[in-house]
C-alpha cells in the first residue's frame, strides 16, 4: 500500500484540478472502506489519493419538490438517521442501516458504495429500485446518468474516479418502498440475498410504476423487469405480489456459493424476500 501523496481538498473544483494534474494516476477516496482494502491487497495502485471527505457541500439529504437529493459523500449513518428518508425512501433508509457495523456506517459513503459497483451493495440495490440518477462532474463538464448505466460488471463502474466525481443522487419522493435482506448473521456480513422495491400506487390502487432490484444474483445490481411488468398498470393485490415475486425468481441467475448458499436456495429466497418487501411497501404509508 504505497502512495506518494494524500490530498485533503475542500471543494470539488480543487479536487478536479488535482485529478487533472495527476492525469489518471490519482484516485478519489471517500470513506476508504473499500479502497483501502483494495490498495492493501495490491488490487489497485495509485500515485496519489484525493480525499473528498472534507467537502461539506457534498453531504446533505434534502427534499426539493417532488425529488430527493443526496450528496454523494453522505455516510450510511447519515442516511440511516434521516427522518426524511425513513418517510419518503424507506428502502434506502433500511439499506443504509444494514451496511456493515457502526464504524463502517460512520465513514462509508453512499457514493463509494455505488462506484465500488458490487452486485449486492446495499444502497445500490435501494437506489436502483428508487430510480435514482447520479450527477457526475469532471473538469470537462457534468453528466447525469441513470444508476443502471453506472454498473458495468463486478467491481466495475462507468465512473472513472481518476477523473470524475459523483456529486449527487436524485430520485423521486413519491415511491412507497421497502428493503429486505437475508444474511448468515444479523449484522456485519454480506447478504445471501437483498432486495428493494419501489411502487407508485395511485388512488385507485393501480400500480403506476414498479421497480424491483435484487442482489447478488448477477454481475451487477439486478433490475427484475419481468416481475415489474406483472405489477405495472395493474390493481395491486396479494395475488399479483406473489406472481411478481415468482416471476423474479425465474428471471434471475444466481450462482452456487460455498459461503452464500446454493443457487437453488437463493432463488427460493428471492421469492420470499420479494413477497415480504412488496407487502411492506404496499401496506406502509
Amino acid at each position, binding site marked *: 500500500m504505497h502512495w506518494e501523496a494524500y490530498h485533503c481538498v475542500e471543494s470539488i473544483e480543487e479536487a478536479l484540478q488535482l485529478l487533472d494534474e495527476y492525469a489518471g494516476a490519482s484516485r478519489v477516496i471517500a470513506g476508504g472502506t473499500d479502497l483501502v482494502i483494495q490498495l492493501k491487497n495490491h488490487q489497485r495502485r495509485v500515485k496519489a489519493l484525493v480525499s473528498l471527505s472534507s467537502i461539506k457541500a457534498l453531504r446533505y439529504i434534502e427534499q426539493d419538490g417532488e425529488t430527493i437529493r443526496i450528496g454523494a459523500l453522505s455516510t450510511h449513518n447519515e442516511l440511516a438517521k434521516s427522518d426524511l428518508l425513513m418517510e419518503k425512501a424507506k428502502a434506502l433508509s433500511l439499506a443504509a442501516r444494514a451496511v456493515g*457495523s457502526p464504524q463502517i456506517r460512520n465513514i462509508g459513503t453512499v457514493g463509494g458504495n455505488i462506484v465500488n459497483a458490487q452486485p449486492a451493495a446495499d444502497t445500490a440495490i435501494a437506489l436502483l429500485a428508487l430510480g435514482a440518477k447520479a450527477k457526475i462532474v469532471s473538469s470537462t463538464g457534468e453528466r447525469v446518468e441513470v444508476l443502471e448505466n453506472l454498473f458495468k460488471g463486478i467491481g466495475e463502474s462507468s465512473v472513472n474516479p481518476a477523473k470524475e466525481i459523483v456529486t449527487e443522487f436524485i430520485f423521486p419522493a413519491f415511491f412507497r418502498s421497502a428493503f429486505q435482506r*437475508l444474511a*448468515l*448473521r*444479523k*449484522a*456485519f*456480513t*454480506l447478504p*445471501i440475498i437483498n432486495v428493494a422495491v419501489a411502487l407508485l400506487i395511485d388512488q385507485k390502487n393501480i400500480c403506476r410504476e414498479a421497480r424491483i432490484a435484487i442482489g447478488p444474483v448477477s454481475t451487477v445490481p439486478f433490475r427484475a423487469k419481468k416481475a415489474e411488468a406483472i405489477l405495472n398498470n395493474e390493481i395491486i393485490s396479494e395475488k399479483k405480489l406473489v406472481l411478481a415475486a415468482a416471476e423474479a425468481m425465474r428471471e434471475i441467475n444466481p450462482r452456487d456459493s*460455498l*459461503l452464500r*448458499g*446454493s443457487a*437453488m*436456495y437463493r432463488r*427460493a*429466497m428471492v421469492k*420470499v*424476500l420479494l413477497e415480504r418487501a412488496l407487502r411492506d411497501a404496499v401496506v406502509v404509508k
Partner: protein
Amino acid sequence: MEKKYWCVGQNFRKDGKEKVKGETKYAGDIFLPDMLFAKPLLAPVSHGRLKTIDTSLAKSLPGVVAVVTAEDIKGSNRFGPVMQDQPVLVGVGEDFKFLGDTLALVAAENKKIAEEAIRLIKVDYEELPGLYNFNEALADGAFRLHQNMEKNICSSGEIVIGDITSGFNESDIILEEIIQTPRQEHAYLETEAAVSFFDNQGRVNLYSCLQDPYYFNYDIAQALGLPANRIRTVATTAGGAFGGKDDITLQAHAILLTLVTGRPVKMVYSREESILIHPKRHPSEIRIKIGATKNGRITAFEGRVLIDAGAYTGRSPVVLTVALNSFVGPYYIPHIKLYGHAVYTNNLVAGACRGYGQPQSNTARELVLDMLADRLNINPVTLRKINALKQGQQAGTRLVNLDTPPTLDSLLDQTMAVLEKSPHDDTPAYCKRGTGVACAMPLFDISALPSLGLAGTGVAIQMHPDGSLVVYASAVECGQGVISVLAQIAAEEFSVNPGDVEVILADTDSTPKSGPTTASRQTYTSGNALKIASEHLKKRLISFGSRLLNVAEEKLYFYGGKMLVKDGEGEVPLSKLAKECYYAGVNLKEEAWFRSNHATIGHTFIATAADVEVDTLTGSVKVLKLVTAHDIGKAINPLAAAGQIIGGGMQSLGWAMTEDLMQKDGMVVTPSLAEYLIPTALDLPAMETILMENPYPTGPYGAKGVGEHASMTAAAAILNAIYQATGKMVTNFPATPEKVFNLVTGIPESS
C-alpha cells in the same frame, strides 16, 4: 449453615480498570530498542515436498537482517505436547503437511520490509495428493502421512462398561444417528504475538501470549537445541486464549530469530495467519446407537467418535480421551461401548478448544437424546431425568467418582422455570417457536491424563516486611479473571483487602510451575495450592505471634489486616508482625504443591435451556433466550463465573449457528473474519445464568471448575430447540438458514 467469608463470593476485578482504559500491555504492545519484525513464509499448498528454497533475493533486500530456514536450527526442529512430530520449520527434502506449516522466516527492520522479503523467497516444491476427509484418510491403501505410524490413525480409545449386546437386547427401541460437527476457530481478539530478546546474562527472554509457560519453555528449548534454563518464558496477559494458545506457534520462531540475529524480535500474526496456524476445535463425525425401554430407560449406548486431528499429533490423543470419557455424560446407562479414533489428514491442525473434545461428544449425545425422546413420545426433560446419574451408580467413565450427589434434576428444573416465566411475544404465522434443553457432566482438571505438565500445581506466597502479600503462580490471565480469584483467595486467608494483594503470573524465572491454564482447572488447582501455601505461612506467623503476644496459638486468628486474640485482649497488625518476623529471620515465603485429590478427573453438572424462533420460509433462526444452570460448588467470584458461562454460551451459539472453518480439498473457504462468522452482539439472545452452590469437598472453599462448561450444552440446547420447533434435527451444524430451510421443506442435502 452457610459459611461466612471475608471476600470469597464477591465480585472483585483486579485488572478491570486498566483493561477498560486500554492500558493493559499485551505482547504486541512491547517495543524494544533495535527490535526487528518477523514474518513467516507458509506452505503454498496443503501437501507437498519442499525441493529447494532460495532466499538470496530476500536477503539482499535493504532492511532485511536475516532469512532463516530449517538449516539454521540446532535442535530437534520438532515440537508437540504428546509426540514431538511438528516441525518448527519444514526443511528441504521434507514434506509440508498443511497450510499452516512454516518454511522460512524473515527478520527485518520493519514489518513492511519483512512482508516484501517474504514475497522474494523462491520455493520449488512438488505438490502431493492430500487427505482431506475421514474416508480418504482411512481408506485401505491410503498413503501414510506419518511414516512411523501404521495407518493415518493418530490415536484410538475405547471404554466398555457392562455388556453392550445384552443392553440392546433389553431395549424396546433402538436409534442410530450420525452427527457431524464443524471445525471451530477460537477467534480471540488478540492474534498470536511474541517478543524475544537476550538479557544481560545471554539468556533468551520470551514474552508472549501462551497458556503454559513451563511447557513452552521446555519444548521450544529442546526443539531449538538449548537447555531449558537458557530461556525465560513470560506469558503476557492474553486477549483471549480458549485453548488456541496452548500450543507453540510463532514463539519458537521469534526465539530462533533472536538466536540468529542477536537482536530483539517481534512477531505478530495477521488474522489470516492466525486462522491457518493455530490448532482448531476438531471437526468430528459421531455415530451413536442407543437403546431404550418403552418407558424411557436407556439400556445401551454405543458410540464412535472420529476427530480430524489435521496434519500433526498435537493434543489429539488427549482430546479423544476426554471426548470419550464425557460421552455418556450425566446419565446412568448400564451397558456402554465407546470407541474412537483421531485421524491424520492434510487439514488444519486441531487441538485444544474450550471443552477439549467434550462439546463434540456431548452435543451429539444430547441431540440423539431429543430424537429418542421423540420416538418414545416422552418429554425430553423427563427422559433426561429418568436416566440422570444417581450417587452410587457407575458413570460412563471409570475416571470419575461421584463424590457429591448429582444435581441434574434440579438444574433442569431451574432453567426451565426461567423459560416458563419469559414472556412469549407474538410471532408471525410462518415462524415457529421451540424450547430445547441439553445437559452435560463437564470434566475439569484432567490431571491424571497423559498430557505434559497437567499433573501437579505449584503456587507461592510471600509476605513483605510491611505485611503486604505477593502471590506467585504460573496461571495465565486470559480474560477469565484468574488474577482476581488468586488475589481474593490470598486476601481471604489473611483477611486483607484483595486490592492490596499483588499477583505475579506466569514467569518461569519467578513463578512455580502451575501447569496449563486450560481444562477449567486454575481456580481449582492453583486455588488449592495457594490455600495450602497460605495455611503454611499463616501457621508460621501464628507460631511467631504466639510467642510475640504470649498467648496460645489456638487463640490467634487473622481479621481485617491484623492478628487478633480470640475473646481477649491483644492484637498485632500484620505490618508489625511481618516486620518482627523479618528481623527475627523467619521465612515469610511459602510454596505449596497441589496434586488433585479428587478422582482422576473432576466433574460437575450443567444444564442449558434455549428458546428459538425459526422462520420457516427462509430457515433463519433467532435464538431468543439461553439459560444455563451450573453446579459450581462455590462461586469465588460470581460475576467472573457468570462471565465464563455467558462467554462459553456465546461461543457455543456461534458453533451451532454460523461458525464453520470450512475446508474444501485443503483450501480454506473462510480465511478471515469476513467469511468466518462469529456472533455479533445482535445475534446474542438474552442470557441468564444460575449458579448453584453446593460446596465440593476438595475444591478451594468448595469451588469447582467452570471455564469451558457452557460450551458443552448451549449448542445442543439451541439445536434441540430448532428440532422442537420444526420436527427436524440439524445433524451437521452449523444450522445455516439454507440447511434449516432444506430440512423444513424436505429438500435433500445434496441438491
